[in-house]
C-alpha cells in the first residue's frame, strides 16, 4: 500500500505541487530582502521557523542529560591496577582500604588498557586544531554557505572525541572537566532562549529579531542576520557539549575511567 501511495507523488520539481505553491515562493523571493542572508535554508531554519530549532536544541540537550542520568556511575572502584612505567610491571591492589602512594613512577590503569600508539598520537595531535578551526568556520558561515549551528557543533564535538580515541579517556577528562561540559550544554540552550527573550522587552514578539536594532549598530534587516548568527552559536555550543557527554558516558559505561 505504501508503494501505491508513493506512485501518486507529484513529480520532482513540479511547480504546481502543494509544497511549492503556498509558502515556498514567498520565502524564496523575500528571504534575502528581509534578512540579508544568502543561504535560504539557514534563514528558514533559524528565523522563519525559529521555534522548531529552539525545541530541537532542547531535545538534544535532553538526550545528553538522559545519557548522563542513566549511565553515570559514581561508585569508587574496588580494585585498582597500577603499572610501573619503567619496567611494565603491573600491581593489582584488591583491598580498597590500602592506598598506594602514587608517585611519578606508577600510573593508574584499567583492565582494558591498551598503550596508545605513537603514530596515532602524533597525527591526531597535529590534525585536531585544524578540525576545530573548520568547525568554527562552519558555524560562523552558516549564513553564506551550507552549514550552520548543528553541523559545526558536531564537527567540534567529534574533534574532542578524536582526542579521546587517540590518547585515552583520562586525557580528555583532564582537559574538559565534566562539570564544564554540563555547563556548556545548558549555556548553549540558554543563549538561544536568551536571544529570543530579549526581543520581547524591545517591543516585538518572541523571536522577532528585527526589534533588536537599537542594541546593535546596523539597519533593521541586517539585524536579523546577526540574530541568526547568535542563535547558531548557541546551538553549536550545546551540540558540541552533548556529543562529548554522550560519547564519554557510553564508552566507559558511566565510570569515566577508560575505554576504546
Amino acid at each position: 500500500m505504501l508503494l501505491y501511495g508513493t506512485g501518486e507523488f507529484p513529480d520532482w520539481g513540479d511547480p504546481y505541487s502543494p509544497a511549492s505553491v503556498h509558502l515556498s515562493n514567498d520565502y524564496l523571493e523575500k528571504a534575502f530582502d528581509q534578512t540579508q542572508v544568502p543561504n535560504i535554508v539557514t534563514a528558514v531554519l533559524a528565523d522563519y521557523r525559529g521555534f522548531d530549532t529552539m525545541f530541537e536544541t532542547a531535545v538534544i540537550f535532553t538526550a545528553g542529560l538522559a545519557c548522563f542520568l542513566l549511565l553515570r556511575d559514581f561508585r569508587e572502584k574496588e580494585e585498582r591496577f597500577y603499572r610501573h612505567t619503567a619496567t611494565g610491571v603491573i600491581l593489582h591492589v584488591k583491598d580498597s582500604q590500602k592506598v598506594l602512594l602514587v608517585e611519578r613512577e606508577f600510573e593508574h590503569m584499567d583492565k582494558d588498557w591498551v598503550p596508545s600508539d605513537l603514530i596515532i598520537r602524533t597525527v591526531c595531535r597535529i590534525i585536531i586544531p585544524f578540525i576545530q578551526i573548520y568547525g568554527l568556520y562552519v558555524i560562523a558561515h552558516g549564513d553564506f554557505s551550507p552549514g550552520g549551528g548543528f553541523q559545526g557543533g558536531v564537527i567540534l564535538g567529534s574533534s574532542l572525541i578524536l582526542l579521546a580515541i587517540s590518547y585515552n579517556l583520562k586525557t580528555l577528562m583532564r582537559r574538559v572537566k565534566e562539570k564544564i561540559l554540563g555547563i556548556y550544554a545548558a549555556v548553549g540552550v540558554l543563549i538561544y532562549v536568551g536571544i529570543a527573550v530579549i526581543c520581547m522587552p524591545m517591543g516585538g514578539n518572541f523571536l522577532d529579531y528585527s526589534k533588536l536594532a537599537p542594541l546593535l549598530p546596523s539597519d533593521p534587516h541586517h539585524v536579523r542576520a546577526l540574530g541568526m548568527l547568535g542563535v547558531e552559536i548557541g546551538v553549536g555550543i550545546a551540540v558540541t557539549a552533548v556529543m562529548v557527554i554522550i560519547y564519554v558516558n557510553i564508552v566507559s559505561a558511566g565510570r569515566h575511567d577508560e575505554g576504546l
Partner: protein
Amino acid sequence: MYWPIDLIVLTFVIFCAIAAITVKDLLATAILFGAYSFMMCLLWAVMGAVDVAFTEATVGAGVSTVFFVAAIFRTSRRTKD
C-alpha cells in the same frame, strides 16, 4: 537528476540496509550503518539539498558510527539472535 546515478545509489542503499540486518557480527553492522548513511548523503547531494547532505555526512558517517562502535565495545560482539 541523471537517473542512472539515482538508480545505482538507491540499489546500494537497499543492499546496505538488508545486509545490516542479516550480518551476524555487530561490528560489521555498525560499519554498514555508516555506509548506509553515506549513501543517503549522496542521494541528497544529487537532489540538490546540500545542507541536509552536510548534516548527514557529519552526523551519520562521523559521530553516529563512533557511538555504535562504543556501544558494541561495552556489550557483546556477536548478535544474540
